[in-house]
């Protein structure tokens, strides 16, 4: 650890990991409710669990981004964070807000209250006071990191990270605008939801990935920056007007069908570029960094993001296709692998990279961490494939043959059982990851003898 204030990241990592655990446990409960619909139906209804599952996902990813930024910015700017105290206050606000959200969702004490009641917009259900808290926390954060960068060295990695984080905070302001007209409500709602995950978050992702590549592969900064610019340009070019792919069937003018179809088809390009970037950097890299697990997560992130966000997104983004698949399990398949690949794996890669440095340990025995990568990713890929089959069957039965919704759900039960199984694998993978990263390894594994492949023909 070069700078003392990088320690701030540690607190953020712990909070993020705690929420991550909540998220996957809620996911497991949801998976079980799909196959046993009466499970907890009185105490913890499906819609509440779903809110907890998605909200905790977003909050822990954000917390992880903040933590990553507090680690990355000092190293890029070559100076300490402007004010560590502010960083802890920011975290406190986020934790209090999150606790408030959980209490509000579970017990619903303030139904209908302007300030305290939940707001009822999918993913933006948080009561207004929590939204205000998020904005205050974001402002504190932006002030803190921007001051650090302004006083320090300016690099493309830090600048693009800041651009992404500023965009994230500014776009969140649309969460406060809630028109009575449902079509307009949805139109602005996507300014937060879409322009986050398919816009500014991609900038955050690209810059964090670039930072990891710089550190892990030792490729020249110039080369990394050039890739970074190309990735960011293609992400914004396709992603901003790609918002149109949410405007097909919500009452907006028909031309959005073509704008959305054409631009969102190109959203696969930045994800392909990020995957190529990661692999090319590793091939070109001269440095043999000991933290192999962080490298595995980085490559896994870029690859699974390409498939989850890029390929599975393209699968249903053309409006003539989406006409049939909209809101089926195809969407769930895409959502799971996209979030896991692009943002979960990214955070876990960064945590895996940061932890040994923050703890002042040698990169300890990472076999468990790597095993958790395969278990979690394997589970998630299996879940995605399962849900894709479920979605295909559902699309045909429900949208082509016109069977009714509940009848179709019955037909899908085999897939939902398999999804529950794969969810179990993911949760086990998460526990394994937590153990691997929180409990210090006691042995440093020495590499075995190098076996060189023979170039001579067999005798």
């Amino acid at each position: 650890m070069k700078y003392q204030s990088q320690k701030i990241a540690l607190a953020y990592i712990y909070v993020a990991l705690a929420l991550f655990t909540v998220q996957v446990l809620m996911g497991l409960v949801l998976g079980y409710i799909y196959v046993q619909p009466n499970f907890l139906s009185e105490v913890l209804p499906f819609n509440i669990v779903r809110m907890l599952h998605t909200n905790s996902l977003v909050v822990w990813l954000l917390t992880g981004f903040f933590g990553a930024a507090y680690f990355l910015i000092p190293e890029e700017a070559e100076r300490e964070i402007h004010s560590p105290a502010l960083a802890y206050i920011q975290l406190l606000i986020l934790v209090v807000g999150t606790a408030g959200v959980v209490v509000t969702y579970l017990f619903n004490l303030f139904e209908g209250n302007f300030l305290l009641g939940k707001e009822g917009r999918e993913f933006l259900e948080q009561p207004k006071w929590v939204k205000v808290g998020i904005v205050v926390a974001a402002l504190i954060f932006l002030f803190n990191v921007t001051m650090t960068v302004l006083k320090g060295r300016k690099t493309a990695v830090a600048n693009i990270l800041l651009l992404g984080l500023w965009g994230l905070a500014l776009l969140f302001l649309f969460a406060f605008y809630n028109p009575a007209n449902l079509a307009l409500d949805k139109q602005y709602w996507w300014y937060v939801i879409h322009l986050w995950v398919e816009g500014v978050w991609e900038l955050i992702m690209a810059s964090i990935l670039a930072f990891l590549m710089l550190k892990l592969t030792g490729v020249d900064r110039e080369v990394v920056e050039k890739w970074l610019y190309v990735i960011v340009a293609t992400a914004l070019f396709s992603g901003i007007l790609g918002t149109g792919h949410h405007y097909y069937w919500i009452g907006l003018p028909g031309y959005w069908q073509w704008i959305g179809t054409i631009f969102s088809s190109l959203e696969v390009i930045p994800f392909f570029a990020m995957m190529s970037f990661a692999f090319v950097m590793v091939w070109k890299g001269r440095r043999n960094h000991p933290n192999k697990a962080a490298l595995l997560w980085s490559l896994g992130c870029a690859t699974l993001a390409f498939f989850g966000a890029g390929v599975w997104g393209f699968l249903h983004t053309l409006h003539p296709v989406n006409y049939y698949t909209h809101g089926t399990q195809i969407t769930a398949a895409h959502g799971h692998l996209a979030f896991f690949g692009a943002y979960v794996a990214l955070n876990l890669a960064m945590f895996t990279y940061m932890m040994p440095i923050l703890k002042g340990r040698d990169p300890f025995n990472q076999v468990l961490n790597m095993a958790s990568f395969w278990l979690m990713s394997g589970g998630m890929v299996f879940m995605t494939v399962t849900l894709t089959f479920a979605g295909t069957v559902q699309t045909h039965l429900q949208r082509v043959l016109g069977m009714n919704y509940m009848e179709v759900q019955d037909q899908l039960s085999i897939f939902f059982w398999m999804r529950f199984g794969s969810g179990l694998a993911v949760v086990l993978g998460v526990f394994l990851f937590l153990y691997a990263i929180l409990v210090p390894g006691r042995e440093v594994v020495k590499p075995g003898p190098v076996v060189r492949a023979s170039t001579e023909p067999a005798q």
Partner: protein
Amino acid sequence: MSAPPQGLAAEPLEQLPGDLMMWVLIVSELLVFGAGLAAFLSVRLSDPAGFADAQDQLHRAAAGVNTLVLVTSGFFAARASRACLAGRPRQVRALLALAMALGGVFLLVKGLEYAEAIGAGLFLETHPFFTFYYLLTGFHAAHVLAGIVILSLVGWKASPQNLEVGTAFWHMVDLVWVILFPVIYLLR
């Protein structure tokens, strides 16, 4: 980003005139317009007669004049780039001003065309043909406007590198129009 680093770009990429980022943008634009035209042609298959009738409402002569205007403008921009290499800053600015003025003429003619179509009650939602017509030519016109801004910027900070970047964009705008024009206005 001027010094070409080893690594990302193989040799051929390093030999691109101007800046790599401009070429990323140009390729992206061509993909978008290409996809738009492909979609236009596919939808046209479902209703050739309707598309032909709709096309008859357009002002072909105006679009033909605009083609000449834009290609001539591209010529002046290319001369400006050459003049910059030869180190004649006054000539660079004069040629760029001509190119930009012709861009302005293009927009004026296009504006008159739109006014005529709207006056005749032809809107985005009137017919699929007009959805594509307005989207494609509208996006293109927005790029003409952006191109004029870019040309003014590279005229202000004139250097051979900047001129190459600016004219590359301007030629892309040219190229897209040269493809849009026959497909939308002339194809029967």
